[in-house]
C-alpha cells in the first residue's frame, strides 16, 4: 500500500505546517519539507487570493514587476485590488501562455487602482457584467509601441453599469485603449490614451460622460459608436467635453475585420450611429483627417441585417470646441478627393450626410435635428452627400446652426 504523500506539493506542506507535531507523528514515514509561502510563485498566490477573497477585502500588489503567465480572474464582489502606483506595481504578461486577457472580472463593487498591467496577449483588463466598477490610476500598456500583435483592449468594461475610469493611462491597444461596451452610467475622466487605434471608445452604451481626458497619437482620439446585432444597442446620451484631442495621426494598426480597422488615421472625435451626443469645449488640434467626424453605419459598406438597428446619428450637438489645424492629410478616399478638389484642409466638422428617410425618400428629420452646431472656434463644415456617392458635398453650415438643451450629467454613487 502506497502512502498518500506528495512532498513537492505546497498545499500539503502548508497543511503539515498547520497540523504541527501531531501531523508529523501521524505521517511518520513521509519525509516532509516545509515550503514557506514565499516559495509559491507570486502569480499563484495572487490568483489564490482573488479566488478566496471575501467581500470588503483589499488585495495589495507590492511595488515591483510581477510576472504573470496565465489570466488572473476575480468573481467575488466587493474586492479592491490596490498597488503602490501605476509606475511601481506592475503586472507584466510578457510571458503569458494562457488566457484571452490579463485580468478578467465578473464582480460588483469592484475597485482597481494604482497599478499597471503590461503586455498581455489579449485584452489587459476585461470586466464583464459587473456593477459599480472603479478603475483609478491604472495603466494598461503594450510596451513595444503600436503593433498589430498587441492585445485588442486596454481597459474593457462590457455589459456593466456604473463605471468610473479616472486617471487611467492606456497605451498601445490594437483596438481601443479605453473601451466601454454595451454599458450604462459611465464616466471616463482625467485619463490619457496614447498610441492606440482608438484612444477612448464608447460603444453601444448609454449615459456616458467623457471629460478632462487627453487622447493623442492614436489613430482616432475619441469614438462614440453604435453597432448592429448586439444584445445591447441604441447608443445615446453621451457627453464628450473638455478633452484635449490632438495629433491622432498614427497609421491604423488594427487587425482587419474589426470595426475600428475602418477608422481613418487622423480622426479626432468620431460619432457613428449614436443619438443624443453632446460634444463641447474640447480642444482638437492637428488631427489630419478631420477634427470631428459624424457618420452613419452605412459609411462602412457592411450590409445591415438587423431591423432593430438605427444606423443614423441623430441629435448630435457640437458646440464651443476649439479647433487648431488638422485636415491636412486625410486618410480617406472621399476626404482626400475633397481636399484635392478644394485645395483646402478638410473642414473641422464632417458629416457624411446620410439620414433616415421615408419610403419615398423624404428626410424624416430637419438637418438641425440631426446635427446642431454652435459657437465653435471655426465654422468649417462639410456635408459629404455620401448617400449620393459624394457627388454634391455642401459646405453650408447654416442648416445646422442651432442650440439644443444640454444633456444631463452622469451621476452614480460609486463615482462621488
Amino acid at each position, binding site marked *: *500500500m*502506497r*502512502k*498518500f*504523500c*506528495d512532498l513537492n*506539493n505546497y*498545499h*500539503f506542506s502548508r497543511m503539515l505546517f498547520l497540523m504541527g507535531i501531531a501531523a508529523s507523528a*501521524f*505521517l511518520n514515514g*513521509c519525509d516532509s519539507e516545509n515550503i514557506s509561502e514565499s516559495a509559491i510563485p507570486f502569480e*499563484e498566490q495572487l*490568483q*489564490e487570493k*482573488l*479566488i*478566496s477573497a471575501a467581500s470588503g477585502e483589499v488585495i495589495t500588489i507590492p511595488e515591483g514587476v510581477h510576472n504573470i503567465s*496565465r*489570466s488572473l*480572474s*476575480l*468573481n467575488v464582489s466587493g474586492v479592491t485590488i490596490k498597488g503602490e502606483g501605476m509606475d511601481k506595481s506592475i503586472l507584466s504578461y510578457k510571458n*503569458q*501562455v*494562457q*488566457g*484571452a486577457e490579463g485580468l*478578467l472580472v*465578473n464582480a460588483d463593487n469592484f475597485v482597481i487602482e494604482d497599478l499597471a498591467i503590461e503586455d*498581455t*496577449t*489579449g*485584452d489587459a483588463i476585461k470586466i*464583464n*457584467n459587473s456593477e459599480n466598477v472603479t478603475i483609478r490610476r491604472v495603466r494598461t500598456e503594450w510596451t513595444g509601441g503600436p503593433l498589430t*500583435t498587441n492585445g*485588442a*483592449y486596454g481597459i*474593457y468594461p*462590457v*455589459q456593466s453599469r456604473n463605471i468610473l475610469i479616472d486617471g487611467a493611462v492606456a497605451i498601445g491597444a*490594437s*483596438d481601443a485603449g479605453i*473601451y466601454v*461596451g*454595451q454599458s450604462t452610467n459611465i464616466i471616463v475622466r482625467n485619463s490619457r490614451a496614447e498610441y492606440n487605434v482608438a484612444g477612448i471608445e464608447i460603444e453601444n452604451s448609454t449615459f456616458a460622460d467623457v471629460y478632462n481626458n487627453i487622447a493623442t497619437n492614436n489613430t482616432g482620439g475619441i469614438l462614440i459608436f453604435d*453597432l448592429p*446585432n*448586439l*444584445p445591447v444597442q441604441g447608443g445615446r446620451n453621451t457627453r464628450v467635453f473638455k478633452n484635449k484631442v490632438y495629433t491622432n495621426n498614427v497609421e491604423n494598426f488594427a*487587425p*482587419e*475585420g*474589426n*470595426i475600428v480597422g475602418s477608422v481613418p488615421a487622423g480622426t479626432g472625435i468620431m460619432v457613428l450611429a449614436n443619438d443624443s451626443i453632446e460634444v463641447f469645449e474640447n480642444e482638437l488640434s492637428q488631427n489630419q483627417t478631420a477634427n470631428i467626424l459624424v457618420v452613419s453605419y452605412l459609411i462602412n459598406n*457592411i*450590409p445591415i*441585417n*438587423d431591423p432593430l438597428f438605427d444606423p443614423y446619428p441623430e441629435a448630435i450637438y457640437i458646440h464651443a470646441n476649439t479647433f487648431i489645424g488638422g485636415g491636412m492629410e486625410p486618410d480617406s478616399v472621399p476626404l482626400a478627393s475633397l481636399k484635392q478638389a478644394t485645395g483646402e484642409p478638410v473642414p473641422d466638422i464632417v458629416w457624411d450626410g446620410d439620414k433616415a428617410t421615408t419610403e419615398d425618400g423624404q428626410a424624416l428629420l430637419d438637418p438641425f435635428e440631426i446635427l446642431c452646431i454652435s459657437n465653435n472656434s471655426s465654422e468649417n463644415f462639410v456635408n459629404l452627400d455620401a448617400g449620393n456617392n459624394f457627388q454634391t458635398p455642401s459646405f453650408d453650415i447654416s442648416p445646422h446652426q442651432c442650440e439644443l438643451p444640454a444633456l444631463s450629467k452622469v451621476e452614480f454613487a460609486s463615482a462621488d
Partner: protein
Amino acid sequence: MKPNLKSVLSSFQKRIHALCAGSAAVLFLQLTGCDSGPILLPESNPTRLSEWNLFTIDEQFFEPNEETQVIYPTNSLFTDYAHKLRTIWVPPKTQITWDNENLLYPVGTILSKTFYYPKNASGELLKTTDPQNTMIALYESKLIETRLLVRRNDGWDAIPYVWNEDQTEAFLRIAGSSHEIALTSINGTKNKDQEPPQKFTYFSPNENQCAGCHTTDHPDGGLLPLGAVASQLNTTVLDQTDSNSESQLDRLVTKGWLTHSERNKFSKYTKSYNDQSATLEERALAYLNMNCSHCHNPLGPADTSGLILTGNHRSPINLGICKPPVAAGRGAGNLRYGIEPGSPEKSILVYRMNSSESDEMMPELGRSLVHEEGLKLIRDWISSMPGQCG
C-alpha cells in the same frame, strides 16, 4: 492489445476500499467514520482528493467507488485529446428531481471528471479516441487531473485536483496548474517514429476558470453541470463490463436516484456530433452546442459578441453567418464574417478554432491543441452552405 478490463473487474468489486485499509487519510477518516460510499464534505474542500473517497487506487487501477455511477454524456467538450472518466454520486436517501427538462441534483451530489491520457509501454502518452472506460488501468494511462462539482447548500462548487507524478494522489490546486505534455499519434498507418510527438502545455483550470464555462447563466446564476444534463444522458452507452444497453437516465432510475414516472415523460436527446447518420448541420450544431454555447448563449458571458451557438439562434446572423466581428481583436484573423457560406477559409469561426494563440483561439480556455476532427466538421459544414455575404 488492451487487457480485458471486464475480466479483472470482479476482483475489484470485492476489494475493500484502499483508503479505509490505511493511508495518510486515516486520521481524517477516523474522524468522519469510514463509510464505504463517497464522503460528503458539506463545507470544506480537502487538500487531497482521496478524502472524498470517490475512488480507489493502487499500482494497477484507478477505479470509481462502486457507489458512484459512471456516465458518458453524448457529447464532450474537447480538452486536448484527454480521455475522461466521469462519475455521479448522490447521497443516500436523496433523489435527483426534475425542473421541467432539467435535472435538479440534491445537495450533496458529487460529479467528478478525471482527465487522463493512455500511454504505451515506453511511457509515451498517446493521442487516441476515448474508449469510454469505466475504470483506468494505470499501467497504460497517466492521470492528469480530477475536477469535482459538488452541490452545496448554496449551489455548485468547482474543485480542481491535480495528480502527482507518482499517480498516488491528487491535490487541491485552486489556482490551477500546468503540465508539459507530448502526445504521440497512433491513429493512421504511419510508423509513429516518423511523426514527432505533439508537445504542448496542458492547463488545469483554476476555480474561477471552472466557473468561466460552468456559469452558463451569467452572471447571476451559479455554476451548472454541462455534461450531466438530461438531454446528454438520454443515450445508451455500451458498458464494457456488461452488455447492458439501457439509457443512462434509466440507469439512474434503476439505481433509485431518479424517479421513474417523470423520467418517462422525458424524451429529448442530443445528437452526437460523431453520429454519421445525422446531417452535417445537426452534427455541426451539436458540436458548437457542446464546445461553445456555455459562453455563447443569450445569457452567457459571450453574448457580448452577439454570436449565439446553442443551435437555437434567433436568426442566421446570430449563428455568425455574414456577421462582422465585434471585439475579436486579432481573433478576427483579418476576416470579415463569422461564417462566410461556402468559404471556411474566410470564416472567423474556423480561424479561431484553428488557432492556438491565447488571444485568438476559441474556446478561450480548456485547450492548447486544435481539435482537428471538430475543425474538419465545422469546415465541411460551412463548405456545404449555400449563398454568400454581401
